[in-house]
């Protein structure tokens, strides 16, 4: 039995300044080419984490890779599965029904247009009826954090944040450290009793 819990990235709102470097880094990491400068970014910026900025709080929100992932449970196309301790979306199976998008308790799923080699990918069959007649319709897929599954350096957002406000949480390790910290605190307070 695999008892390992899924990792996830979380931001510290005390450190986040709302610069959106995480969003840029995420979008760059998921391009199908190596883009270093803005001039090489020929398609819309499509991050998989989203800066939330209200009067009260500023921090990016992204997928928690839930153990009993609601998105996977509601997916009618069986496009969302757990692979290597990550909840992943298969864009080829996704039909764009948006149920996962409205089900996700974190609002961490977005429907994004699909591009290949900087060109929009069109729906195979479905066309849109417009005043100019039937036109091709761009293909969309549900999109969310994949923890940069193909990236050896780990999540791009964590690496790029100038504030070091993002952290890749390995839950059991984090929990163990919290326990040790608590034990140390308790031991110190008992000594001073």
């Amino acid at each position, binding site marked *: 039995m695999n008892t390992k819990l899924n990792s996830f990235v979380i931001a510290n709102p005390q450190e986040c300044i709302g610069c959106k470097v995480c969003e840029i880094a995420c979008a760059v990491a998921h391009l199908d080419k190596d883009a270093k400068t803005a*001039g090489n970014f020929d398609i819309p910026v499509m991050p998989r984490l989203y800066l939330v*900025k209200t009067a009260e709080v500023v921090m990016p929100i992204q997928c928690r890779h839930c153990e009993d992932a609601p998105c996977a449970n509601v997916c009618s196309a069986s496009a969302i599965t757990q692979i290597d301790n990550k909840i992943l979306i298969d864009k080829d199976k996704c039909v764009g029904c948006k149920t996962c998008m409205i089900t996700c308790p974190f609002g961490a799923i977005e429907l994004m247009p699909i591009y290949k080699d900087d060109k929009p990918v069109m729906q195979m069959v479905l066309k849109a009826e417009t005043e100019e007649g039937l036109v091709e319709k761009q293909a969309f897929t549900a999109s969310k954090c994949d923890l940069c599954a193909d990236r050896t350096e780990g999540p791009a957002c964590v690496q790029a944040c100038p504030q070091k406000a993002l952290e890749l949480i390995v839950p059991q390790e984090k929990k163990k450290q919290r326990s040790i910290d608590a034990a140390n605190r308790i031991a110190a307070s008992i000594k001073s009793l």
Partner: protein
Amino acid sequence: MKFSENRIYIDQELCTGCKRCSQVCPVDAIEGKQGEPQSVNTDRCVLCGQCIQICSAYASAFDQDIAPREQKLSERKLLPSVKEPLFAAYNEGKAPEVKAALADKELYKMVQCAPAVRVAIAEEFELPLGSLSPGKLAAALRMLGFNSIYDTNFTADLTIMEEGNELIQRLENNGVLPMFTSCCPAWVKYVEQEYPELIPHLSSCKSPMQMAGAMFKTYGAQVAGIDAEKIYSAAVMPCTCKSFEAARPEMNSSGYRDVDAVITTRELAHLIKDAGINFADLPDESFDAPLGTYSGAGNIFCATGGVTEAALRTAYEVIAKEPIPNVDLEFVRGTDGVRTAVVGAGDIELKIAIVSGLKNAVSVLDSIKAGKTDLHFVEVMTCPGGCINGGGQPKLLLPADRAVASEYRSASTYIHDSSIEYRKSHDNPEIKKLYNNYLGKPLGDKSHHLLHTKYTARR
């Protein structure tokens, strides 16, 4: 175009108030509370564009609450075909204006490129950071329809002839010392507004771009056998302040506005893409003689310490009356914010300071003001590392790549220098010809009129 129209903007719809721009702004010109959209104090701003380079607050295509992309492109005066993301901090472009001029058959189009452009523009076409591409650059400009592919590097050599001799003249005649370089327009504006009492220290030499502008519509018109009125003079610069410089009211010594339009390296990439030119596959072509022939010394103007090194290669030989033992003056290169050197030339020991990043100039200026230095020459580049990291250069998407790009652009600059036949400005054969056939001598009457300028206290 008016003088005051050249400024840096922060898009109020996009700015998240992260204030990273205010950390890189060398003059504290960015105002606003944390978490709220920022604004630029135009009196303080020196238009260096470092805020543009660092800004990461982009316009999301999926944000329904902001103005449509077409509207933002038009407000920013960018070509409608531009695809790259738009960020909160920006300068107004001139590419649509240049595109219209290129289509105008009545105009004779002359273009110049700053040295920094050839070590960076290829980055916009998926080539590695710092790729050296002078040949592709010349080819692209020719394909775009420019009639003369000239070069700021040529007038960088000319600047050395004038500025080197100006330094010698100041040394010999007890002139105001130290002499400050004057090729960085943001630095010049800074001295004018923050240290007007030090204006006499600024070299009277125009920047290489403005020298080129003055030469295009005089000597260039003569060489081409055309009426100066027909010349459209465009400049491609790594800099967001050069538009401001070109619009200075005194920059008209040719009898016309010397530089009609300045576009950034990024905007040239937009024009090349707009024309459907595949930059990466272009063959290498040459810049045109006479105003496009350059030495390695002219080429290194774009890296911090480069102007100093170029000046020393010439000044040493004029003062010592013997060839410089080694043209590669490694001791003035580097990345530290303030570097000093003492150079023996003949009987003189030249004391030099090199400032990289305008923030670092304050301590040097304050000690000069207090009369506490015995420096002879001070080079200041507003952008850290020099023009290779200018506000108009290709914008790195990730913070970590900025240092990498700087290193590779700098390395390419010196590789190009060492591969050019002439390493010293005074060896450039077209410079010799220009003095013999047209200007007479450095600091002569014609030079004085065309190549030198005056400054304005701004407070």
